[in-house]
């Protein structure tokens, strides 16, 4: 896959601030933003930064990674149910794999997601750690 700077730049609001949307019609909070409310189907473009707090819905420790994540193995990924409602897929950090459990309270932090070689772009974004 070709690594493109623009792909990552477009997502800066989501990667650094968990910027979602709120539906002006039904009040649903939406992440990732999609401009059409998945609840009521009406246009929803009002930005809303999320708190970054949530709890672990499920998790998995990865031993066989996709390209670009070899250096991090084993790492733990999770589905995090945010307190505003949406669910997000992210890595857990600052926690040992055997300490993670479903229902654990977590909060968003900004971390390095991946670097492509010595010369490649370094990608930053959200991960979640146990709530301090």
């Amino acid at each position: 896959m070709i690594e493109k700077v623009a792909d990552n730049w477009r997502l800066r609001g989501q990667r650094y601030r968990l910027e979602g949307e709120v539906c002006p019609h039904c009040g649903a909070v939406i992440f990732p933003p999609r401009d059409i409310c998945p609840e009521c189907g009406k246009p929803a473009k009002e930005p809303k930064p999320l708190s970054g707090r949530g709890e672990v819905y499920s998790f998995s420790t990865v031993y066989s990674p996709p390209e670009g994540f070899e250096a991090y193995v084993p790492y733990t990924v999770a589905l995090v149910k945010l307190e505003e409602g949406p669910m997000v897929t992210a890595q857990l950090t600052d926690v040992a794999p055997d300490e993670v459990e479903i229902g654990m309270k977590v909060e968003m932090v900004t971390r390095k997601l991946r670097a492509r070689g010595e010369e490649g772009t370094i990608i930053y974004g959200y991960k979640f750690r146990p709530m301090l």
Partner: protein
Amino acid sequence: MRKVAIIGIGQTKVGEHWSLGIRDLALQASLAALRDANLEKVDALYVGNMMSGEITGQEHLGALVADALGLRGVEAMKIEAACASGSAALRVGTLAVASGMADLVLVVGVEKMLDTSGRETTSALAMAADAEYEVSQGVSFVALNALLMRRYMHEYGWKREDFANFAVVAHENAMNNPNAMFHLRITPEKYAKAPMIATPVGLLDASPVSDGAAAVVLAPADYARTLSPAPVLIRASAVATAPVAVHDRKDPLALEAARLSARKAYEAAGVGPEAIDFFELHDAFTIMSALSLEAAGFAERGRGVALAVEGEITRTGRIPIATMGGLKARGHPVGATGMYQVVEAALQLRGLAGANQIPNARLGMTQNIGGSGATIITHILERMV
């Protein structure tokens, strides 16, 4: 709309084909299907494939395979819907014949996955998931299934070892399938000791990456009997979708697209799950078997695993699955898998499944899943003679 029948089937052995390229594999399966249908020409060709561009550097498979087959000038296209690409191609072929736009259609599913390293193939497979919001976080395709399996175990109280029979039964059934990738019995003990890929998914929960191709020839059912001694009727063909990302689904364990496509298929066929004699489901991972059985109405929510634990998925059980080895042991050449399911179902319905024959099989169902559950395609097939 016209009714559509399968009048020819063909497949290559599933496995590691060092000596065959993607064109060669598609050609072998296609020629076998044409020979079975006693035809040399068709009106259209649809090629199901997921990752030829990424893995082999070759796209444009429609024209490529048509040319290789000597089908000069014929309508031909590649159809892509991740791991459901094979069934998606069959769906398009079925629409072409049903609508009257074409009479004779060749559909071939093909995939080449073993010329590259495991890591490259893992990355190519991950393209079935949401690139911006899943894959960017380091989530492999296996990990997505692992997230579902962990939650399923948590909500319904199942243990890892309860899933073992899905793999054990698939490997047992593959013993009698000469085209299967594995001819290797496994035990629950072996399952329990398998190394972890992404917890709680171990090596024996997962289907293998494979090379392979499978094909069928379609014709209007009205004159299928004049073309083939043992045609198989496509009673229903249904596609449904759900969000690509697991986190965007309201109820990740519901496999909503499977429920919708199965319901549409049952309605079209005018039958329910109790009428189905065997079910070629998408056992890419043991958790997918459980969710697919539930969504298709063979088990209550959270009880899909019970069918494995109680032995109801064997060839003599209430709902036989993976009768020729399934994705787990026949192998999972992703874009070809849906076509293998259909070819194997046709073998059962023709009474040609050998030692694995389901006695008096009349109605068979196939369900092919793209991604972690975003595109799900169900076909119901019926014996015509």
